[in-house]
């Protein structure tokens, strides 16, 4: 993707001036020619995007900085090669409005009654009273944000605060798609409404409630689809690819995976060799048996590898199968790679 690619933004229809939108606003004033416009979209849903504040070199620097400080082994960090970058716009639903309706509740009540014991002393006892029924109206503001597709691989969960603060741009899919990957929403708008109402409904529950019925509906709804920028970078080490997702607004690392630190392992190989040598020196039969078990163990690991089990946990870098090279590597390997560094 060219770094300085030109693209067309939604501009004033009268003077061509740039237009900045604020979340939840229905109308927009062109600051240049003072013309007022009503913003709308398909099915009344407005589509905006947040312009990336981080350009590609900054995103790569942020990723490199994370690699240097995020627990990745120094040698591994130096061996990682930058491979590719992709600017992605991830869709989020934003819903503002009111959740209004009613709540009908049946509650348990407790009544205190005075009783007299055989000595004539009065004491209080708590007894279950008649159930109390109440009805009340509900009206709350709704401020809901939800990913419009599965974004778990990008490590981004919500954009409520950012989209409320930063100016939005009107989206023009074709022009934006020329310089980036624009993800389409998978989750339908009706689902977002249901989720927002379910969230509002969850706040209605009360203690000691036996039964509750409610009816909630959305009013003065402002539903918008906001695309959020992230940089998806990939680094390579040998044949493996390590992805890094960088927030296109603030440069935070949202998701990353890197090879772990290398550790020196002395105990396992030295113990096995010493044991075999000791047994062979004092008891030839036992020594031969241990050596056979050792070979059998290696064969089992190979079988496990072929069936798809993760061998790295057992053998570190050795995944080549039961060969003499493999055996020697297992016995004399002093450096073991730790678990991968994962973020987000």
């Amino acid at each position, binding site marked *: 993707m060219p770094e300085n690619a030109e693209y067309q933004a939604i501009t004033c229809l009268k003077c061509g001036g740039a*237009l900045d939108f604020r979340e939840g606003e229905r109308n*927009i004033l062109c600051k240049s020619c003072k013309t*007022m416009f009503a913003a*709308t979209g398909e099915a009344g849903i407005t589509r905006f995007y947040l312009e990336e504040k981080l350009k590609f070199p900054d995103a790569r620097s942020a990723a490199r900085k994370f690699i240097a400080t995020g627990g990745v082994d120094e040698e591994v960090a130096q061996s990682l090669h930058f491979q590719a970058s992709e600017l992605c716009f991830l869709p989020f639903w934003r819903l503002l409005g009111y959740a209004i309706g009613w709540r009908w509740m049946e509650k348990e009540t407790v009544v205190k009654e005075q009783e007299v014991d055989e000595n004539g002393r009065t004491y209080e006892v708590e007894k279950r009273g008649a159930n109390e029924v109440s009805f009340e109206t509900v009206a709350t503001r709704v401020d809901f944000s939800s990913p419009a597709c599965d974004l778990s691989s990008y490590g981004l969960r919500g954009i409520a605060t950012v989209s409320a603060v930063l100016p939005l741009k009107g989206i023009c*899919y074709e022009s934006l798609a020329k310089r980036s990957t624009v993800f389409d929403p998978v989750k339908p708008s009706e689902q977002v409404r249901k989720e927002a109402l379910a969230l509002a409904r969850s706040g209605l529950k009360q203690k000691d409630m036996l039964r509750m019925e409610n009816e909630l509906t959305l009013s003065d709804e402002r539903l918008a689809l906001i695309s959020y920028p992230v940089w998806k970078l990939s680094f390579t080490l040998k044949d493996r690819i390590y992805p890094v997702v960088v927030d296109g607004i603030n440069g935070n690392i949202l998701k990353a995976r890197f090879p772990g630190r290398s550790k020196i392992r002395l105990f396992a190989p030295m113990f096995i060799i010493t044991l075999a040598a000791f047994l062979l020196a004092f008891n030839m039969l036992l020594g031969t048996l241990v050596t056979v078990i050792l070979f059998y163990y290696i064969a089992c690991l190979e079988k496990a590898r072929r069936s798809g089990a993760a061998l790295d946990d057992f053998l570190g870098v050795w995944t080549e199968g039961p060969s003499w090279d493999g055996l020697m590597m297992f016995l004399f390997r002093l450096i073991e790679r730790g678990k991968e560094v994962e973020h987000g």
Partner: protein
Amino acid sequence: MARSQDLWLVPIVCPECGRGLPAKEDDVIFFCAACQAAWELSGDNLARRELFVVSGAGNLQFPFWVFPFKVTTPDGNFDTLEAFHILIGNVNPVPETQRGKPPLLFAPAFSSGRPQQMLRTGKLLTVRNPSLTVAKRQLTGTSPITLGEAAAKEMARIIAITTITSERQKNLRFVKSLSLQFGRGRLCIIPFDLRENRLFNAEFNLEI
């Protein structure tokens, strides 16, 4: 995916005189002072809406959607003001001229940070159901109209339920069986006076 543009901009200009209409960021109704006409965005165009100012004294003018409506319950139909008074337990007599008319439901057309207050305002006006007299004066200093007819109708349904007597509200079967039918909404501006942080309308004998 073939989409030319995902955000449409409609210039807010009076379709009759071509003047730019003043609008705030949340407005859904735009008022042309020169033509004394109200306009609402409908698709890609501005469509005319009926708007009238209710007579009365007051410096603050609040917009409301007024819907004629009909309530159907297992106990029968409540489609006149007189029948509605029975449903809500209002003992005030209905003037002879108003008896056969459909009840009017008042839903706020303005936004507030306190949505419960919006429901309460709508309830008080609906219970009072004042007869509206159109004032012969120009519209000035009105609160922004931020709720469209569809949004107001959603609110109107809840307002209607709040007006019925509390004993009937506690009857879950009754509340669930309520069926409401609304007629076409009209916008009206009601003047209020502000006294000690409360809104007064002397004509309707109303305090909010």
